[in-house]
C-alpha cells in the first residue's frame, strides 16, 4: 500500500528511484529522503534501540530525529546516518541499525577537502528570517555567506503550505535566493551545516556536495567539504525544533512529532498513516491535523493537554469532523512493530499513527558555542538566547519567536545591524511578506511528561534512557544537569539531545523541586550534527597526512633493501637485511663488520644549527653545561644541554668553524626544538647578545665512516688529507676534498671505534656515499642502520636522549659529571645542580645490566626490583631498563638501565620481572666494551 499523495510536495513523481532497505526492494522519487521514501512505502520500523532492542521508527523529519539510524551499504559502507537526512538516489542500499553501526572494512574511496572563506556577514539558516537577513546584508554591499543544511532554501516554510503576500511561499523564497545568487560577493551554500562556532568569528560548516548523487557522484569532485569561514558578523537563524511529550511507551514506530508529519506531507507528499491520534500542548499541531485530514488521513482525535481548546481552531476542526478533547493526556500506547492503540483518558483508541507536540525548542546550539548566555523562557518552556553579543545576532524562531511576520522582521533587523557593524550602510529595506498562517505555537502549555510507567517512558530514545533513569540520578543526589547528562547518557547520542535535552532538564527540575530559571543548561559543543572523520581529515590522509623527510641518499637505501624507521618526520634506514636475515641476525652482522673492519651509515638527519656572531661563544657557554668559548678553531667538543631545572634536554657535538662561528649538532628528533630553545633565550633574555642561529640540517649530508679500516678507506677517497692519527687527531676537523667534492671531515666517534664523519653538500651526498662504498669494497664495507648504531653506542654506554633520559635525568645521573663545567660562573641548569633533590644519593642513575644468563634479552621498559621473590604489593621499583640488545662484541646480551642509587650498586644482583619469572641481572658500569678506549685511534 502506498502512502504517497497524488499531488504536492517537492518530488518528481515521474521518475522512479529504486533502493533496498533491509533487503527489501522499494522505490521512491527524486526529492525524497530515505525516510520519506520508506514512509511512503508504509515502512515505519527502521531499527531497534541500543540497549533494550525495542522497535524504533521515524520521530522527526530532519537532523533532530533521534531514532532513524541506518547503515548505508552501497555505494560505500557508512554507519550511523539518519534516514531523514539521507537524500534518496537510485541503487541506494541501507539497513536499519540496532543502535550502533559498524565501520567500513575498506578505505573510503571518496575525496574530501576543505576551503577557506572570509566574509562580512555569515547567515546560518535559509528559513524566512535567515533569507531576509542575508538579503538585507547583501543589499548593503557586505560580503555575505548564507549556509543552510537543507538541499533547498525555505527552512520551516518547506514543511507547511503557507501563502506569503498571497502567493505560495516557495515563490517568495525563490525570488530571494535568485537575488542573493546574482549579487556579487554573496555565496549561498546549500546542503551545508554550520556545525561549530568558535572564537573571533570562526565557523566550521560541512557541505555535502555529492552524497545525494550516490553512484553517479563524479570521482573527481570532493564528496564533502569543510568550509572554514572567518566572518566579522554572524546572524543565527537556526530555527526551532518541535519537542515531544514523554509518556509510557512513547517510543513505538508510528509515533511522530506533529510538525514533522506535516513536513512529510507538504515537502514529500507522504502521509504518516491512515488513522492518527494527535496529542498536543499548543496550537501548532492543529494545523498538522487539519492539513493531514484534508489530505485523507482519518484524525481520530485531538487530545489537547490544555484545559481549554483554542476556540477558532476547534471550530475549524469541528467543520472537518475532527473531535477535539481538551484537558486530555495520552497515558500509554500499544503495538509491537507499530503503534496500534493509544490510551487517552482511560479510553483505548485504535490508530496507526500518534502525532505529538510538546512545544518548540529554539536551536541555540551555535549561539551557546559562541559563549552566548541562555535564559529560560517559562512561557515557551525552553532556553532562549539571553543576551546580545557584539558579533553574533539571533533572528527568527531561534529566539523563541514563532510568529512568521515577527521572525522576518527580526531577520531584517539582524541583517541590517550585522552589516552596519561590519561597516556597511543600509542598502534599502527588504519588504517583509505577510503570512496567512493560522497557527502560532506560543499560547502553549509546558508539559514534560505524563505520569505512567517510568521504565517505559523514554526521555532519550536513542540512548534508551527513561524517566526512571532520570529519577535514579536525582535520587542518587545528582543536581547538576551536566552530571545527570553523564549519569544517564541523555543527550550524548548522535542527535546531542536536540529533542530530549530540554525535557530532561524539565523532569530534573520537577524532581528536585527547583525552578528551571535557576538551572544551567548543559554546554552545547561542536559538532551540531555528526561529521565524519574523513571530512575532517580532508586531503590530509595517507601520504599527505604528515610530511615525509628523506635524505639525499634515500634512493640508495631503498635500492639496497633497507627497512626504515620513522624518527620524527624522517625516514631512517633501520637495518639492511640480506636474504634470509631477520633484524637480529642482520644487526649482529652489521655490528661485527663495523667493529672488525668498516661500516658506514647515513647520519644526515642529525640536526645542525649554524651559530654565528660576536657573542656566539658566550651564548653557547650559557646553553651547554661545559665550556665552548675556549674551543679552538678546528676542534670539536661533545656537549650536554639542560633545562633550567638541570635535566638533560639534548646532547651533541659543537664544531668551532671560525672565531665567531660554530656548528652545533642536535639529536635527529630535537633539531627544531633546540633551535626554538636558542631563539627563545636570544629573543627574550639576551637580546643584547650578537648571535644568529640558522638551521642547516638539510644543507649537509653526513656520513659516519666507522671501524678500524675507516682510515684506509678515507685515505683512498681523500688523497689531499693526511689521515694519520698525528695529523688528524680525535675531536678535530679538516676541510678537504672527498671523492672530488669539497668536504668537511670530523673525527668523531659514536661507537668507540676509529671513525670519521664526512660532511658534504646534500647535492653531492649520494655520489660521495657511492664512492665510499666502492673504496671500502675490499674491506667488506657494510652499510648499517639505526639499530646497529644503537647497539654500538650502548656497548659504550653512550646515552640516547629520549631513550635513556626522560626529562628527570641530570648529566650526573648519566655519569657525565665530566661534561659539567666547574669553572663557568653560570649556565642554564647550573643552579639546579645544587638543589637538595638533585643531590639525593638515591636518584636513578645510568648503569649497565648483564643478565646472569647471557642468552636472556630483557624487554626494554622492564621494571627492576631488589629481591628474588616479589613481596606483597606495592612492590618497590628501583628503576627500569632503557635499552637492551644482544651484542656481537660482548658475545652476550646486555642492557642499560636507570636504577635507584645505581652507581653504588655496581656488582649487586638485582631482578627484572619478565612475564612470570624474575630474571637475575648483575649491575655494571654503563661502559661495557673497550673500557680503556683503546679502539678510538684505530
Amino acid at each position: 500500500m502506498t502512502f504517497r499523495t497524488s499531488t504536492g510536495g517537492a518530488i518528481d513523481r515521474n521518475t522512479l528511484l529504486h533502493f533496498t532497505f533491509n533487503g527489501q526492494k522499494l522505490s521512491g522519487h527524486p526529492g525524497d529522503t530515505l525516510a520519506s521514501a520508506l514512509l511512503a512505502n508504509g515502512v515505519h520500523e527502521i531499527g531497534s534501540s541500543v540497549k533494550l532492542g525495542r522497535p524504533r521508527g521515524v520521530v522527526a523529519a530532519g537532523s533532530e530525529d533521534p531514532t532513524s539510524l541506518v547503515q548505508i551499504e552501497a555505494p560505500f559502507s557508512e554507519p550511523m546516518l539518519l534516514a531523514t537526512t539521507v537524500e534518496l538516489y537510485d541503487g541506494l542500499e541501507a539497513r536499519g541499525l540496532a543502535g550502533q553501526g559498524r565501520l567500513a572494512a575498506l578505505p573510503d574511496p571518496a575525496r574530501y577537502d576543505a576551503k577557506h572563506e572570509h566574509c562580512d556577514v555569515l547567515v546560518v539558516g535559509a528559513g524566512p528570517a535567515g533569507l531576509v537577513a542575508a538579503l538585507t546584508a547583501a543589499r548593503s554591499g557586505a560580503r555575505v555567506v548564507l549556509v543552510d543544511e537543507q538541499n533547498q532554501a525555505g527552512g520551516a516554510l518547506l514543511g507547511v503550505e503557507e501563502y506569503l503576500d498571497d502567493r505560495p511561499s516557495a515563490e517568495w523564497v525563490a525570488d530571494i535566493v535568485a537575488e542573493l545568487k546574482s549579487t556579487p560577493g554573496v555565496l549561498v551554500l546549500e546542503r551545508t551545516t554550520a556545525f561549530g562556532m568558535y572564537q573571533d568569528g570562526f565557523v566550521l560548516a560541512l557541505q555535502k556536495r555529492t552524497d545525494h548523487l550516490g553512484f553517479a557522484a563524479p570521482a573527481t569532485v570532493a564528496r564533502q567539504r569543510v568550509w572554514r569561514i572567518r566572518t566579522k558578523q554572524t546572524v543565527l537563524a537556526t530555527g526551532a525544533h518541535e519537542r515531544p511529550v514523554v509518556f509510557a511507551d512513547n517510543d513505538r514506530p508510528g509515533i511522530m512529532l506533529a510538525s514533522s508529519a506535516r513536513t512529510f506531507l507538504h515537502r514529500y507528499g507522504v502521509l504518516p498513516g491512515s488513522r492518527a491520534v494527535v496529542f498536543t500542548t499548543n496550537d501548532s499541531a492543529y494545523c498538522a491535523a487539519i492539513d493531514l485530514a484534508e489530505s485523507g488521513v482519518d484524525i481520530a482525535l485531538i487530545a489537547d493537554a490544555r484545559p481549554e481548546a483554542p476556540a477558532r481552531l476547534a471550530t475549524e476542526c469541528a467543520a472537518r469532523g475532527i473531535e477535539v478533547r481538551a484537558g486530555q493526556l495520552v497515558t500509554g500506547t500499544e503495538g509491537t512493530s507499530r503503534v496500534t492503540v493509544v490510551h487517552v483518558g482511560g479510553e483505548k483508541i485504535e490508530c496507526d499513527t500518534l502525532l505529538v507536540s510538546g512545544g518548540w525548542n529554539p536551536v541555540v546550539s551555535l549561539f551557546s558555542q559562541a559563549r552566548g548566555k541562555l535564559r529560560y523562557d517559562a512561557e515557551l518552556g525552553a532556553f532562549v538566547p539571553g543576551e546580545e553579543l557584539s558579533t553574533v545576532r539571533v533572528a527568527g524562531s531561534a529566539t523563541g519567536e514563532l510568529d512568521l511576520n515577527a521572525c522576518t522582521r527580526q531577520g531584517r533587523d539582524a541583517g541590517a545591524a550585522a552589516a552596519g557593524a561590519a561597516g556597511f550602510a543600509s542598502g534599502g529595506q527588504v519588504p517583509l511578506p505577510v503570512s496567512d498562517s493560522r497557527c502560532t505555537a506560543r499560547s502553549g502549555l509546558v508539559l514534560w511528561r505524563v505520569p505512567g510507567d517510568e521504565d517505559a517512558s523514554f526521555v532519550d530514545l536513542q540512548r534508551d534512557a527513561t524517566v526512571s533513569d532520570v529519577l535514579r540520578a536525582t535520587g542518587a543526589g545528582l543536581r547538576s544537569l551536566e552530571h545527570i547528562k553523564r549519569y544517564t547518557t541523555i543527550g550524548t547520542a548522535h542527535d546531542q539531545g536536540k529533542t530530549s535535552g530540554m525535557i530532561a532538564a524539565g523532569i530534573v527540575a520537577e524532581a528536585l523541586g527547583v525552578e528551571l530559571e535557576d538551572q544551567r543548561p548543559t554546554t552545547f559543543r561542536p559538532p551540531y550534527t555528526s561529521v565524519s572523520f574523513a571530512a575532517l581529515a580532508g586531503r590530509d590522509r595517507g601520504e599527505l597526512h604528515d610530511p615525509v623527510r628523506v635524505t639525499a641518499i634515500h634512493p640508495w637505501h631503498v635500492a639496497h633493501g633497507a627497512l626504515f624507521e620513522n624518527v620524527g618526520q624522517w625516514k631512517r634506514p633501520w637495518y639492511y637485511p640480506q636474504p634470509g636475515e631477520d633484524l637480529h641476525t642482520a644487526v649482529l652482522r652489521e655490528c661485527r663488520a663495523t667493529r672488525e673492519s668498516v661500516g658506514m651509515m647515513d647520519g644526515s638527519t642529525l640536526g645542525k644549527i649554524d651559530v654565528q656572531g660576536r657573542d656566539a661563544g658566550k651564548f653557547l657557554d650559557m646553553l651547554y653545561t661545559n665550556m665552548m668559548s675556549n674551543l679552538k678553531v678546528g676542534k670539536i667538543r661533545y656537549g650536554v644541554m639542560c633545562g633550567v631545572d638541570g635535566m638533560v634536554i639534548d646532547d651533541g657535538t659543537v664544531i668551532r668553524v671560525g672565531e665567531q662561528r660554530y656548528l652545533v649538532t642536535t639529536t635527529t628528533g630535537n633539531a627544531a626544538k633546540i633551535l626554538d630553545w636558542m631563539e627563545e633565550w636570544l629573543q627574550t633574555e639576551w637580546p643584547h647578545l650578537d648571535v644568529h642561529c640558522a638551521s642547516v640540517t638539510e644543507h649537509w649530508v653526513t656520513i659516519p665512516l666507522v671501524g678500524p679500516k675507516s682510515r684506509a678507506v678515507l685515505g683512498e677517497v681523500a688523497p689531499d688529507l693526511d689521515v694519520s692519527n698525528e695529523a688528524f687527531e680525535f675531536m678535530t676537523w679538516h676541510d678537504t676534498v672527498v671523492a672530488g667534492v669539497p668536504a668537511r671531515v670530523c673525527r668523531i666517534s659514536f661507537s668507540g671505534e676509529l671513525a670519521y664523519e664526512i660532511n658534504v653538500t646534500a647535492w653531492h651526498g649520494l655520489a660521495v656515499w657511492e664512492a665510499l662504498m666502492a673504496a671500502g669494497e675490499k674491506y667488506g664495507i657494510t652499510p648499517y642502520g639505526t639499530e646497529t648504531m644503537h647497539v654500538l653506542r650502548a656497548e659504550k654506554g653512550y646515552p640516547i636522549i629520549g631513550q635513556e633520559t626522560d626529562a628527570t635525568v641530570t648529566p650526573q645521573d648519566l655519569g657525565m659529571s665530566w661534561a659539567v663545567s666547574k669553572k663557568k660562573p653560570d649556565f642554564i641548569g647550573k643552579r639546579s645542580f645544587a638543589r637538595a633533590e638533585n643531590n639525593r644519593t638515591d636518584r636513578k642513575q645510568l648503569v649497565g645490566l648483564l643478565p646472569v644468563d647471557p642468552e636472556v634479552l630483557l624487554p626494554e621498559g622492564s621494571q627492576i626490583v631488589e629481591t628474588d621473590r616479589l613481596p606483597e604489593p606495592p612492590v618497590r621499583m628501583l628503576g627500569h631498563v632503557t635499552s637492551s640488545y644482544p651484542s656481537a662484541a660482548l658475545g652476550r646480551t646486555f642492557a642499560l638501565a636507570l636504577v635507584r642509587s645505581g652507581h653504588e650498586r655496581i656488582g649487586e644482583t638485582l631482578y627484572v620481572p619478565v612475564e612470570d619469572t624474575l630474571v637475575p641481572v648483575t649491575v655494571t658500569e654503563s661502559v661495557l666494551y673497550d673500557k680503556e678506549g683503546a679502539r678510538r685511534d684505530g
Partner: protein
Amino acid sequence: MQLIPCPWCGPREEAEFHYGGQAHVAYPEDPSALTDEEWAQYVFFRDNPSGPFAERWSHSAGCRRWFNAVRDTRSHDLLAVYRAGEPMPEVAS
C-alpha cells in the same frame, strides 16, 4: 580558532603560535646568590590568575618572533599585545 594579533605580522590564527608561559619572569641576575627556595620559585612557580595575565607567545609558524600578550584567562580575549622589551600596557579588565 582564535586570532592572535602578532605585533609584527598582524592577526593570524592561533595554530601559528606557540605558548611560552608567564611574561616578565626574568632569568635571575646571579642564580648562585639565590636560596634554594628563591631559585625554585623561578624554576617551578608561575602565577595563575583569573583575569588579565601577561604571557609570552612566539609566532613560531610565522615570523618566529617572541612577543608578550595580556590575555583574560576567563574569556581568552587578548587585551593587548606588545613587543619583547616593551613595558606591559595598561589594560582594563
